[in-house]
């Protein structure tokens, strides 16, 4: 059973990176703000950054090994392809290139030099090179960040299939929750060198431990003061609006509501949604077949048809509504 156990500490400028993690034959995404130590974690596992503590892979202690003695496949953020070698030689630097070129669909690029490749092709070459080493652990640093949105969608699907097929302990560093949720079995959120939460993407959405995790998972975070009343908790927001939640809380809280739980209307609706906040539309952005509409402090994601029906324009006064059961409260 493939397994990576790490317990490492690396002093960084403002804080210390301290991560203890056990990863089986699964992909763990490590997400968080820039400067949180995400890349440093990968470098520590690969031996590129000196770290205290232990890195154990399949029972073998890697802590004292030089990078070239550790069996890692590392895909760097800008791919780090060797510019003086063609694709075949780049991949051959890691191991036998032939099978890998076929597998990643880049056999026809074998004689091309990195400068002649598109972003998506470079990504495939970097992955092929890392896999040619037949690594026991896979480390990917922002594997999709350098790609344009269209290529990104394609590569995300391919990468996910490859990760599922390899069944290796893999760590993917990303700053994008969608990428994290799509690629990984578990998502860890790293803030100031510490994993503040780790779990399945839906667990992070359902029960974020902090406003940061909630915002990272795409939620609206509204700060306020909670007071328990009967079966519901009422929260007086900093902007004086009052909303309710079925979560139990008292005192300073962050109320989290996800954009897909919010509906929009022109006038106060009479349905079962119990929270209503009126505000001015500040942005309308199409996302795939949906519209992201920001009304005051709340962002809603509605279908394109609804947006069409409401004829939303920036500057319009709209009501954002969501259910008490769709309001998570996080104590501050």
């Amino acid at each position, binding site marked *: 059973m493939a397994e990576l156990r790490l317990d490492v500490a690396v002093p960084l400028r403002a804080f210390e990176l301290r991560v203890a993690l056990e990863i089986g034959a699964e992909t763990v995404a490590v997400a968080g703000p820039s400067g949180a130590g995400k890349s440093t974690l990968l470098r520590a596992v690969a031996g590129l950054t000196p770290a205290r503590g232990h890195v154990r892979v399949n029972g073998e202690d890697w802590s004292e090994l030089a990078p070239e003695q550790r069996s890692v496949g590392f895909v760097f953020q800008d791919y*780090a392809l060797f510019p003086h070698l063609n694709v075949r030689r780049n991949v051959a630097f*890691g191991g036998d290139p032939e099978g890998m070129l076929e597998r990643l669909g880049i056999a026809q690029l074998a004689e091309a030099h990195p400068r002649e490749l598109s972003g998506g092709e470079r990504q495939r070459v970097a992955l092929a090179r890392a896999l040619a080493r037949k690594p026991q652990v896979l480390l990917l640093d922002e594997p999709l960040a350098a790609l344009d949105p269209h290529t990104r969608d394609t590569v995300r699907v391919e990468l996910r299939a490859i990760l599922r097929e390899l069944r290796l302990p893999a760590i993917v560093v990303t700053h994008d929750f969608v990428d994290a949720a799509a690629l990984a079995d578990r998502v860890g959120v790293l803030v100031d060198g510490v994993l503040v939460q780790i779990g399945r993407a839906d667990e992070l959405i359902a029960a974020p431990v902090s406003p940061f995790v909630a915002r990272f998972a795409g939620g609206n975070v509204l700060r306020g003061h909670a007071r328990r009343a009967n079966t519901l908790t009422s929260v007086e927001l900093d902007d004086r609006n009052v909303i309710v939640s079925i979560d139990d809380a008292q005192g300073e809280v962050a109320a989290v509501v996800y954009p897909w739980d919010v509906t929009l209307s022109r006038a106060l609706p009479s349905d079962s949604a119990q929270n209503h906040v009126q505000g001015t539309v500040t942005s309308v952005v199409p996302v795939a077949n949906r519209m992201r509409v920001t009304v005051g402090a709340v962002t809603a994601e509605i279908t394109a048809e609804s947006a069409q029906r409401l004829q939303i324009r920036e500057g319009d006064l709209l009501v954002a509504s969501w259910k008490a059961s769709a309001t998570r409260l996080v104590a501050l």
Partner: protein
Amino acid sequence: MRLLFGAAAAVALTFLALPVLAIFLRVSPTTLVHELNDPVARDALVVSLRTSALAQALVVALGTPTAYLLATRRFRGRNILLTVVELPLVLPPAVAGIGLLAAFGRTGLLSTSVPFTQLAVVLAIAFVSAPFFVRTAVASFEALDPTLIAAARTLGAGPWRVFVRIALPLAASGLGAGLALSFARGLGEFGATIMFAGSLQRVTQTLSLAIYAEFARNFDVALAMGALLVAFSFFLLLVVKWLSFGWTSPFRSVPSSSA
């Protein structure tokens, strides 16, 4: 202002080009070629090429690893070592000559019989020209993308393989430019050589020394050797320019014009 600066530039450029032009304008090219058949010139050419080739081989063989260490390691005293490497650049040639004698002379520190042999010429040339190569080489290695080195290591390459397969090829154009500069400086070496190796025809008399020895006796032979050196130097300068700027390959790592 345009007129004033233009005039200054015209005077400066004329002044710089005039001596070189004078060499070629004074006698015809056929005479120059003919005068190179003079035994003094022929011997000096052989001595110059042999000693320069040996000296540059020495400079590259020892200077490349030195430059790689200086470029890739951070340690106390690194700046002092970099200064030591560059010292011969600012040392007056006479001081270099007396220093080499004090080090390798019969009564010197190491007490050897090197002075006034062809080996002494090689050492003098290596001493004064090495900084040109090492400085450029350090700059080339420093300009390597550290992520490429890291990538090579995660792919299983130890330090030696990283150096041979990644660092050397990517720094090659910079190293070439450094070598051309070093070669050019070595060919012109005069002061240190004449003090440390003397000026014996067929043994230690290089082209530069032979020009000095001949100019009172046979000015045309001296001129012919001068013209030959100009041609060499011009060619080496072109090589430097080509390696530093002209090579449009996008993976060229450094414009090594620092020396």
